[in-house]
């Protein structure tokens, strides 16, 4: 007797989008935590009830390949960095297989390793319940039409030529090629959010962006120590200020308007580490940090 086909949502029917933009996600998780603790009282052997220990909290974690023409989280980070003094922020609509969360960006990281496509991961947090149901391909991705073929096109409109890649990563100083070279680069942004509650409401009336920080990690083969406390990354890293991610199409053309710049100007060298192990070259890992 044949095993009957079950109705499941396989990965190819599970759209992932950020504010309507499909991303090339290799994995996505959505977890909701209902924080409570048992309430014990004298006179009772077991808990008399449960007590709430914090707000409802949903976390969404996405890992994906970066397309330079289609990278929504990069612009969310830019928005936070440029407008961090404002008090109210809009949430971003994150969808996984039809389940939607209204979220704030908690962390974002980008990693570029030699001969590899650039990869990103983003973590979002939400303090309100999710909506929708796990129904497979969502018509809201990329199109108002319910056609599945139309919605899928939004994901990868330029095929692999739109992907950011180590081969097309540039190091710049004042918009020209920098003399320094790196073996590895990773970037991370972290944001701290504080939900504000008032008595009588289940959900926060405001979620405030408290602060954020950017960290730039570089691996290279030349060593120089930190000369003084507060040394700037630009001068430490030998006249270099920007890592520019270009799409793979740059291999075929000199013109590429889709770029993602990661600027280290204003950051401070936080740590320098020499790493030596058998069977490999000695590597120097530098970490630079900028606070917002």
């Amino acid at each position, binding site marked *: 007797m044949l095993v009957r086909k079950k109705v499941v949502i396989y990965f190819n029917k599970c759209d992932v989008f950020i504010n309507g933009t499909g991303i090339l996600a290799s994995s996505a998780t959505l977890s909701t935590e209902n924080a409570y603790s048992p309430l014990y009282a004298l006179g009772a052997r077991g808990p008399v009830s449960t007590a709430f220990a914090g707000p409802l909290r949903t976390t969404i974690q996405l890992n994906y390949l970066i397309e330079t023409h289609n990278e929504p989280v990069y612009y969310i980070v830019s928005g936070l960095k440029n407008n961090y003094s404002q008090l109210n922020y809009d949430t971003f609509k994150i969808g996984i297989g039809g389940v939607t969360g209204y979220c704030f960006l908690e962390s974002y990281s980008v990693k570029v390793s*030699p001969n590899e496509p650039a990869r990103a991961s983003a973590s979002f947090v939400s303090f309100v319940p999710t909506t929708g149901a796990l129904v497979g391909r969502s018509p809201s991705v990329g199109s108002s039409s319910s056609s599945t073929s139309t919605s899928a096109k939004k994901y990868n409109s330029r095929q692999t030529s739109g992907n950011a890649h180590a081969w*097309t990563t540039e190091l710049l100083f004042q918009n020209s090629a920098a003399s320094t070279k790196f073996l590895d680069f990773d970037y991370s942004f972290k944001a701290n959010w504080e939900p504000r509650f008032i008595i009588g409401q289940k959900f926060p009336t405001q979620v405030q962006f408290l602060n954020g920080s950017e960290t730039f990690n570089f691996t290279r083969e030349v060593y120089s120590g930190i000369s003084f406390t507060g040394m700037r990354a630009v001068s430490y890293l030998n006249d270099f200020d920007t890592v520019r991610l270009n799409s793979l199409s740059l291999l075929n053309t000199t013109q590429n308007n889709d770029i993602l710049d990661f600027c280290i100007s204003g950051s401070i060298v936080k740590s320098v580490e020499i790493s030596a192990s058998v069977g490999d070259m000695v590597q120097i890992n530098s970490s630079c940090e900028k606070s917002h």
Partner: protein
Amino acid sequence: MGNPVVIPTRITKENQRFFLNTTEIPGIQSFRGGYNVPYQPMVYLGESGQVNMLPVGAQAGSFSISTALISNDLWIPLTGNTGFNGYVIQRRNDIDNTFGFQSGYLTSYTSSYKIGQIPTIEIEAVAFKSAGRISAANYAEDFDVITLGETAALLKIPGPGSVTLNLDEFTTNRVLGYDLSILCARNPMYQLGSRIPWAVEINYPIEVQCNFQIDLSDYQPKNVTDFPFSTVTKNLTLTVKTFDTDAVITTYAFNNLKLESEQYEATVDNSVKMNLQYKTFMMPE
């Protein structure tokens, strides 16, 4: 009359000349190699339709060459840090149809000899700059020299009796054959923004292994429990000369080779033999 049979052209060995950089190597028995494009299917959540391929990993070619040891051993110096180019061309004046590699690095070298045969060398190499068809536009420097023309070289041929081997107490006439291999794994180092490594280092230590087959007479084998405190250590000198003039074609010399294996072989149709394997590891000075 029927239609004439159209015989497709084929490329045969007389039109396959191998050049190491700009020098044609005599005695090449085989040249094999090519490249595999490092692609992976780009699979993601919600994907539908055509699956695109994404470059993941380093671009490199791999090649193996087998050659009779004639005139000169140009390969042994390449077990160090020197890179090289290799081209198979059809004619010196037709270098636009060249298959080969650039920035190749040797990963293994094996010199073999058995009684009654010409000594042979087999090498394996990886290439980091390019692999496949190499047109004249790619690398004019080597091709400028290759196209200059023939230089008639007097071939130096080794003969069966022109190999001398000194492994301390062993005498040459007891050794039936040898395999000497040098393994030098490579570690290419890449930077962001480039497909070509900026440096290629040897992954030390280099492993040198010598296998000998000897006819047994008064040879006293060891026992596995003799190790590690009674390790057998030998110094090897091996010279290949021409069969007619005794001119030296190549010489190998290795010190501190340690006995790693003895394999006893007794059969009904031959004399008793012993296969010995010695090994040493080399680091740079």
